[in-house]
């Protein structure tokens, strides 16, 4: 062996006088890289407690623990991380739908107490809470799907020529893709007044089991096809995916599932205890709350009769919602199911006070859900002129199939869904339509999509417009006089109020002024001894946690009772009364 190989290794001694390989570290640990995956941080204000971090954690290192009372859209839970399990993969950060969870670039932490290595980031204070560096969610890399499958709709020009349904509905493939976006957080369940089992039925749709989806839907909603088309969808407003992307199309998925089956009775076949055999219940008012009570009691063996003043049940969903949103065939399908469950209907029959008293005596329970039938007045001079009409009257006439004439030009006063419906119907009747609303578009109680659709169909929206008076013109038209308003913030935290700017008058000459500014209860028909017991000072009905009024056996629900006045809240009221009646019946069995 050459001498070279004996000498060469000694060249290492040169290192004794050279710059060392190693990097000297002074002043504590070297900071982690800017995107280092260190100890967690969480912006608890931004966090909605959806638990998706916990769901994706393959080490089960994340527990969701209560730190606050739950509110709608926030479970009140926050992630608690167990560093005995965490592997710092940061999938939790990358999936975080609210973008609140992150990791600091701190990685050194020593303690003699092992238990401290389980903490709730953002709640349990840590030195790295304000760390600017570390691994954060990055736009462009999403582990969830932010893009909703677009819903097919009729072309706006085509829509105004027809009464056909505007929304086309998902195909099977579209529904599966849309359903697969759900992360199963359940915030929607808490937000839904009826607490429908949303992630469960979405999961069934995703897995291709539409029948199961419908069964789950019918757990607590007897009018899902209606909800699938016109629900106010509080669920979607709290959807965790909606924080950074498009919320799940929960409403359209429900619509998809229910539309898959023509004969619901075949699919459902509910397996429930028939506790109500031999008992009778009368339902006054065939709206969503009444029909809910009727269905869920009927399948439990109660003999239920629904009394409805109009020739068709459905309540506001029948007479108030235009057919292009909720076609008659959909309503009839739901009613057919009720009939197959044994519910009896008495149509064209308005119950009066004497009959109510008789019903209370003859039935085990009476449920009253008669809605709000008295339109609010415009409270401006000229409100009594012919041609100034309440929107609900117009919608009812239209839906009953009667001839409705709105002339060539219409102003609709109001900003709710009824105002939008009235204006879109007027467009279909061929009129030029203006909506006059007191506040701004963002303040409109109407559904955003409805507002967009109305505008697409050519409805003009004039905001911050306060009606001053209506005058009859010489050529038989109406002069709608309105004044502009400015938005005044009177109280911190409350929505700004419109204040009339004095001295300015705008004129709009129209054929009809359609008033859609809400409606109130009309309970004059109630016997005094009942109304004084059950009504509050505003004329609404008060019920207890079982849905029962102060009159034994008289239950109530719907717009008369709740202050949200939408169909799903009415359904929730109906369910409450069903539980109340069933529990009471069970107690009597014992």
């Amino acid at each position, binding site marked *: *062996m050459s001498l*070279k*190989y*004996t000498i*060469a*290794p000694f*060249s*290492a001694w*040169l*290192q004794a006088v050279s710059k060392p*390989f*190693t990097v000297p570290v002074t002043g504590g640990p070297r900071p*982690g*890289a*800017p*995107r*280092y*995956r260190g100890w967690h941080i969480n912006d608890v204000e931004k966090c909605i407690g959806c638990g*998706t971090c916990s*769901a*994706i954690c*393959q*080490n089960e290192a994340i527990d969701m623990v209560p730190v606050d009372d739950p509110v709608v859209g926030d479970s009140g839970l926050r992630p608690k991380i167990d560093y005995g399990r965490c*592997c*710092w*993969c*940061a*999938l939790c950060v*990358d*999936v975080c739908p609210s973008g609140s969870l992150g*990791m600091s670039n701190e990685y050194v932490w020593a303690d003699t107490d092992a238990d401290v290595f389980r903490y709730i980031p953002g709640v349990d204070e840590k030195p790295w809470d304000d760390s600017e560096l570390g*691994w954060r969610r*990055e736009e*462009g*890399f*999403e*582990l*969830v*799907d932010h*893009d909703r499958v677009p819903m097919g709709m009729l072309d706006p020009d085509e829509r105004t020529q027809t009464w056909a349904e505007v929304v086309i509905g998902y195909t099977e493939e579209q529904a599966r893709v849309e359903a*697969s*976006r*759900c*992360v*199963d957080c359940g915030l929607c369940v808490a937000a839904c007044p009826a607490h429908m089992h949303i992630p469960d039925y979405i999961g069934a749709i*995703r897995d291709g089991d539409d029948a199961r989806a419908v069964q789950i839907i019918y757990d607590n909603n007897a009018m899902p096809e209606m909800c699938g088309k016109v629900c106010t969808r509080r669920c979607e407003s709290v959807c965790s995916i909606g924080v950074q992307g498009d919320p799940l199309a929960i409403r359209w998925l429900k619509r998809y599932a229910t539309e898959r089956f023509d004969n619901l009775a075949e699919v459902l076949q509910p397996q429930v205890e028939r506790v109500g055999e031999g008992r009778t219940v009368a339902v006054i008012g065939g709206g969503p709350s009444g029909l809910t009570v009727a269905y869920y009691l009927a399948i439990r063996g109660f003999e239920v009769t629904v009394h409805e003043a109009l020739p068709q049940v459905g309540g506001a969903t029948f007479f108030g919602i235009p057919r292009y949103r909720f076609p008659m065939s959909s309503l009839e399908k739901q009613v057919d199911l009720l009939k197959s469950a044994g519910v009896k209907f008495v149509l064209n029959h308005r119950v009066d006070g004497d009959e109510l008293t008789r019903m209370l005596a003859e039935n085990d329970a009476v449920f009253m859900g008669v809605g709000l039938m008295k339109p609010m007045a415009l409270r401006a001079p000229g409100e009594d002129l012919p041609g100034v009409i309440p929107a609900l009257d117009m919608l009812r006439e239209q839906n009953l199939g009667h001839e409705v004439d709105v002339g060539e030009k219409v102003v609709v006063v109001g900003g709710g869904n009824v105002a939008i419906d009235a204006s879109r119907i007027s467009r279909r009747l061929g009129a030029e339509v203006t909506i006059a609303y007191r506040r701004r578009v963002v303040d409109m109680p109407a559904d955003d999509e409805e507002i967009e659709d109305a505008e697409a169909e050519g409805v003009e929206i004039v905001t911050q417009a306060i009606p001053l008076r209506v005058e009859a013109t010489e050529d038989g038209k109406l002069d709608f006089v309105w004044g502009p308003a400015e938005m005044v913030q009177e109280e911190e935290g409350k929505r700004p109020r419109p204040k009339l700017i004095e001295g300015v008058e705008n004129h709009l000459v129209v054929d009809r002024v359609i008033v859609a500014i809400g409606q109130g209860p009309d309970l004059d028909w109630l016997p005094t001894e009942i109304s004084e017991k059950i009504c509050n000072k505003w004329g609404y009905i008060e019920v207890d946690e079982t849905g029962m009024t102060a009159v034994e056996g008289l239950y109530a629900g719907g717009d008369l009772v709740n202050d949200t006045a939408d169909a799903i809240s009415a359904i929730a009221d109906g369910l409450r009364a069903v539980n109340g009646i069933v529990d009471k019946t069970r107690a009597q069995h014992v």
Partner: protein
Amino acid sequence: MTEQTALERRVQLWFGPQHPGITGNMAVQAWLEGDTLTSGVTHVGYLHRGFEKLMERRKFIQSFPIVCRICVPEPDTNEWLLAASIEELSGLDKEVPEKARWIRTLFLEMSRLSSMLMVLGGHVGAMGLGTAPNWLITLRDYILDRFEELTGARVYHMYVTYGGVRRDLPEGFAERLEANLQEIESKLPLVDNVIFDSAVFRKRAIGVGVVPEEWVDELGLTGPIVRAMGIARDTRTDYPYEKYGELDIEPMTTTGSDIFARAWMRRLEIAQSIDLIRQILAKMPTEGPYSAKLPNMLTWTIPAGETYVRAEASRGEMGYYVVTDGSDKIRRVHVRGPSYVHGVTLLERLMPGTNIADLSALMVSLQVCPPEIER
């Protein structure tokens, strides 16, 4: 004193699992006559976690934190193989952006480089020479600095995902990586002095642990072991994946097939890796997305199917055989790590006749990574 029989002279010796000379957490049960092995058996099971089985119970995305643990010094091949196999089965491979493919190639080559720096140090470390391992571990740490900056972690990177990678290259990354490469290149002559020009290493490595060429196909040997016997076999050129097909790359070979040849092979491949990383940095597009748009990873299901994908790890051909059944989880995955054949079949064949003092060096030269054996 009566004459001992051959059987009586035999000593049974456990080498490992708690021995610094063993490669990772494994053991060799050796029988010796004098200081020469008459036979040996590989024992594993000290870090069995059931990686493959665990993956059958996890959603696709949740398997990334598992697969990287199949090889500590070089976890990234596993990440890429998992991603590539599932991408192929789901059809997502068509959507992986160009830039992501370049970043992945860079990532895989950095991973090979850091692993080879470490194992080259191991070669002499196994003979009790401490200088080169210390230097080489430092050089490897420079690459780990870049991994930390790129992926947020030094060892378990969890950086490749389905559809691309998790983050873009940080600002100025290429410059800092180039500076590291230069640093490594400047130190390699020093390393050569204390390894390849060292009489100790040469005497103990040349002609020791020779692997006959006939065993290559019989046992399925791959990687530096076969290239060190002059066979130009390299997955990167034979079955190019990601962007290797667009790089100027020839399989390196040397001859001798002994411990020295395998060490020299790694030394050559370190230089090759540095060259490839430079090529990748020069060719990589600066603009464009680094990840495809992913479906919801919590509910993602992919059609039933099966595939085998392979990549060249620093130890040899690494492959994943993956079966899916249309659900949201992998039905079966089989990790084909080179260490199984190298660390069990080949090692057991080589052990008879080996001096006990050379066993450690032999194992390092086969670059055995035990978790790959006991997935």
